[in-house]
Each structure stands twice: as C-alpha cells, then as structure tokens.
C-alpha cells in the first residue's frame, strides 16, 4: 500500500544540501508547486517486519504527481541511487519518480541571470561560474 502524501509544510523546509535549495528556487522560478521530502518508501524489511532500508525522494510535485530525487555526478552515489530507484519502481509501480543530476543546471542558470539560484550549486563538485564571480565581485565592490 502506498502511504498517503503528508500535507505540505507551509514554512520553508531545512534542506539537507544547498543543491536542493537551488532546485527549489528553480521550481519557484517556474511557478511549480513542490513539497520537500514528504514521504518515505520502505524498501526492505527484516524478519520482524521492521524497515531496514528506505528511500525518501527529495521533492514531490503535486500538480505533476511526480517525485524528484537529486543526485551528484559521483558514480558510486549515482549507482546506489539508481539501484534504490529501481527497487522503488518495483515495489511502488504506481508512483512517478525522476532522477536529476544537479550539475547540469548550473551553467544555464548563470547564462539566464539566475545567480541566486545557481549559488547553491557551487562547491567541490563544480567550478565557480564566471558570472557568479563577476556578481560577487560587484557586490563586494558595492
């Protein structure tokens, strides 16, 4: 049985990674309604029926009825998430879920002037975009 979605928390959620916050900003930019980590899907149980492995997608888009999971380009993490995703689809075939690689978003955001949205995607896995450097320099100068 698929657990029912919990009501959206109207307050701003605490994101566990800056990339998630950046993604939320993109959704806001497009006017797409979202809920952060609204549901956990049990994947494996022990002999007592206790959940030993579960999967909690990062976002749920109620209007599209779509779950979103963000991932990095690190192959070991990607592989693990892909495996979990396959298991989710086996156990819960009715749900729609999509895996996003977050690094793909950054350069385009900068190109379109969305510096604030792109800021969350900086870090060790991505180079600092030139546009951001420019903007930060201007802000520091001002």
């Amino acid at each position, binding site marked *: 049985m698929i657990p029912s979605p919990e009501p959206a928390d109207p307050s701003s959620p605490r994101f566990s990674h800056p990339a998630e916050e950046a993604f939320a900003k993109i959704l806001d930019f497009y006017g797409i309604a979202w809920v952060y980590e609204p549901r956990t899907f049990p994947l494996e149980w022990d002999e007592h029926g206790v959940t030993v492995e579960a999967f909690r997608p990062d976002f749920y888009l109620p209007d599209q009825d779509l779950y979103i999971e963000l991932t990095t380009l690190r192959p070991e993490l990607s592989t693990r998430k892909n495996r979990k995703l396959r298991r989710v689809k086996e156990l819960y075939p009715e749900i729609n879920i999509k895996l996003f690689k977050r690094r793909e*978003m950054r350069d385009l955001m900068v190109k379109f002037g969305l510096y604030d949205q792109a800021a969350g995607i900086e870090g060790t896995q991505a180079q600092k975009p030139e546009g951001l450097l420019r903007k930060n320099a201007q802000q520091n100068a001002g």
Partner: protein
Amino acid sequence: MSVVTISRQIGSLGCQVARLAAEALGYRLFWREVINKAARCCGAPDAALADIDELGLLGLKTSLKASQSYVEAVKRVIEDLAAEGDVVIVGRGGQTILRGPPNVLHVRLVAPAGLRAERLAQRHQISLEGARAQVEARDRYRRNYLKRFYHIDWDNPELYDLILNTARFTPEEAARHIVQATLNLPFPARQETLFPYDTIPGAC
C-alpha cells in the same frame, strides 16, 4: 459559449492581459492547468515538466513517445475546455488545436524583444544580459514546440484574429480590445458578466 486563446511572447505581459480579459468576460482562465491536467491524464509527468522548463534548466530529455502522448493529452484537454465554453486558454497551441470554430477568438500578444527583456529583468531582478538570453531561449522554445508538434509557424499572423503589441497598449487596454473582439463573435459573452476595469484588483 465563446473561447479565447492567447498566444504570447515571454515578457509581452500575456498572462496579465489574459487574466484581465477573463475577469472582464466572466470566463474561466486556463494556463498551467492545461499542462498539469494533461500530465495526469497521460501518465507522462516528466513530459509536462519538460514543457514547463522552457529554459532547459532541468535538462529533461523525454522520449518521442512520451512527448507525443503528452501533446495528445494537451489537445484533448483544450478541446474539452472549449466544448465547455466561456474560457480563456493561454498557450499550448490553442491557436491551432481550436482552428476553425467561429466562436473561438485567437489572440497574439507581442512586444519588441528589448522591451520584453527589460520587463523580465525588472520582474525577476536579474541582469539585462540574462533577461535577453531568457527571451531568446523562450521564444525559441515556443516556436520549436509549435513547429515540432503542430507543424505551424508561431509567427504566422494568419493564425490569429487579433495581434496586440503591448509596447503600444497597456494590459488593461489590450484586455479591452480582446473583450470587444469577443463580443463580436457569433456566441459572445453575456453582457451582464462584463464589468468596468476599475473593479478588477490591481487594474489601473
């Protein structure tokens, strides 16, 4: 039982004009609802998300089969809405899906690219350079969407009954022209549903 479809360039204030026209006519306004309903109907939510993602920020790649299924669902949703009547439908190929019936008015909203970029830059508090890039990308996306799925040229004036340049008209004036044109259709709006613009929240 009339229908108004509105095709708009990004930054042409199309959604604002559509809202004002719908309120003045007493019609229901449909924009993103068409996408969402189509997504739910065809079970291709990522195709809908890809459709919303005009700038390609999400980098979604959907299969041709999923895209076609989604576009078919969009067509059915728009046709159903038109059958109900008294609706304003924004975007998604309404000008070609509902081509032909005499009770449908097809409107196109345009403005010079520079002005549209300025509007976007102001609205989203972004650089003019970034706004220009958005205008180019979103124009290209909408042009390609109609070309790919409906084989029409978005800029072909023959697709529209009324083309309004919002560099010349305020949103209220543009909405007034749409209302007037709708009243001239074979099945116009009920007169009693019309009300003065100064009763619309946010109107000048």
